């Protein structure tokens, strides 16, 4: 501050001159006559020329602010793109699910997968639909690409489903092309097994495997997967048939539970016949 006072004292003549000129110009600006209007127009023109000249130079602070705004806008747009992409994928999934729902003659209960395990021997999923939605144990779980598993436990709002990728899981399946029937099982890994397929049976890689409908649990014609390997077992009577599941379990997010109860009459008849044998 002292330094400022010293500077002002050293240049007091100029400081006073500047102040007096400013005061005079302020007084001049109070006039509204031809001269002042002309001077105002010159001043505006001069300021315009100066601004034009100065505008060539980048304004650091304005650029910095603009940069910040653009970065913020970029973040917002990226976020929006991400959400739109997600919505698009969801839209595609929902359309496929809707197509599935129209194809199947059963009541389907939609549900979101809220939990899942895929790296255990007994893999399950948890879904956000339960007994309050009409779900009960043993109901099949499917998605737009095929068979997922079946319900093993329910609460009022949640259910646990046993995946086909579970060592306890079994299902009756058949090869769509040759109508060869086998038992679907899993022993670990990414592929399912089709057991009890005779060496004589016509099964080749690329065949589509679907549910047979012979068991009481799953309705027929639900896609299971594609035969990835079909070879004769060494010294055995059966073929070793491996199936690549049509369902991508890692990306599984939405499922349908087929709200079809087991045909108790059929089950009772089959059990009675089995006991007689």
């Amino acid at each position: 501050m002292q330094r400022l006072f010293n500077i002002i004292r050293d240049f007091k003549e100029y400081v006073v001159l500047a102040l007096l000129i400013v005061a005079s110009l302020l007084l001049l600006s109070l006039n509204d006559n031809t001269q002042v209007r002309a001077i105002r127009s010159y001043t505006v023109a001069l300021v315009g020329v100066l601004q034009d000249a100065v505008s060539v130079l980048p304004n650091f602070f304005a650029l910095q602010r603009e940069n910040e705004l653009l970065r913020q806008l970029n973040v917002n747009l990226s976020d929006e793109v991400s959400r739109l992409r997600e919505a698009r994928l969801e839209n595609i999934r929902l359309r496929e699910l809707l197509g599935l729902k129209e194809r199947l003659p059963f009541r389907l209960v939609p549900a979101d997968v809220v939990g899942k395990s895929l790296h255990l021997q007994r893999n399950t999923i948890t879904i956000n639909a339960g007994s309050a939605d009409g779900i009960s144990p043993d109901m099949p779980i499917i998605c737009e690409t095929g068979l997922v598993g079946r319900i093993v436990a329910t609460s009022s709002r949640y259910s646990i489903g046993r995946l086909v990728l579970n060592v306890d899981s079994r299902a009756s399946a058949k090869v769509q092309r040759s109508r060869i029937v086998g038992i679907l099982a899993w022993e670990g890994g990414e592929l399912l097994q089709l057991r009890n397929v005779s060496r004589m049976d016509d099964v080749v890689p690329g065949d589509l495997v679907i549910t047979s409908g012979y068991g009481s649990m799953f309705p027929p014609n639900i896609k299971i997967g594609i035969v990835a390997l079909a070879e004769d077992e060494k010294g055995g009577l059966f073929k070793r048939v491996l199936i690549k599941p049509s369902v991508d379990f890692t990306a599984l997010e939405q499922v349908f539970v087929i709200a079809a109860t087991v045909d108790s009459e059929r089950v009772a008849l089959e059990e009675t016949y089995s006991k007689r044998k």
Partner: protein
Amino acid sequence: MTRVFKYIFVTLLVIVVQTTMVQFLALQGITPDLIVIWIVYLTLCEGQLAGSIWGFGIGLFIDLVSSSFLGLSALTKTICGFVAGYFYNENKTQMILSTYRFLVVVLVAAFVHNTIYFVVFTRGTDVSVLRAVAQFGLTSTLYTATMGLLPLFGFARKQMLSR
């Protein structure tokens, strides 16, 4: 303080003379500016800072009295006092006042004063800047400097008598 009152008194007197009697000395509409001569004198006696302030005060007074172009005389006479202040020398005041240097100071200060005054005053009219400077500024400057001879003779005579 007495000196200030004396300056104020003379200022009022010069303004009265300038506004009432100088018009009789007009040549082709050009008149000398006695107030400029007075401001130059004040500045050479009191210094640049005082000259600027006196110039502003006198100019503002003229603007208020004439009520024609508020601020223009204040601006030009402030600059006039400031320019004359460059010739201020505390130890050589009498010498400057009583020699041709006084005329030089009046000439320079009046030229700057008149140039600014007429350039601003003729804006918005069909009078060009060059004509404003040459026809009004320069001739009025020469006339004012000529009138500066009168006080110069007075100062020189006073200087001679004091020896």
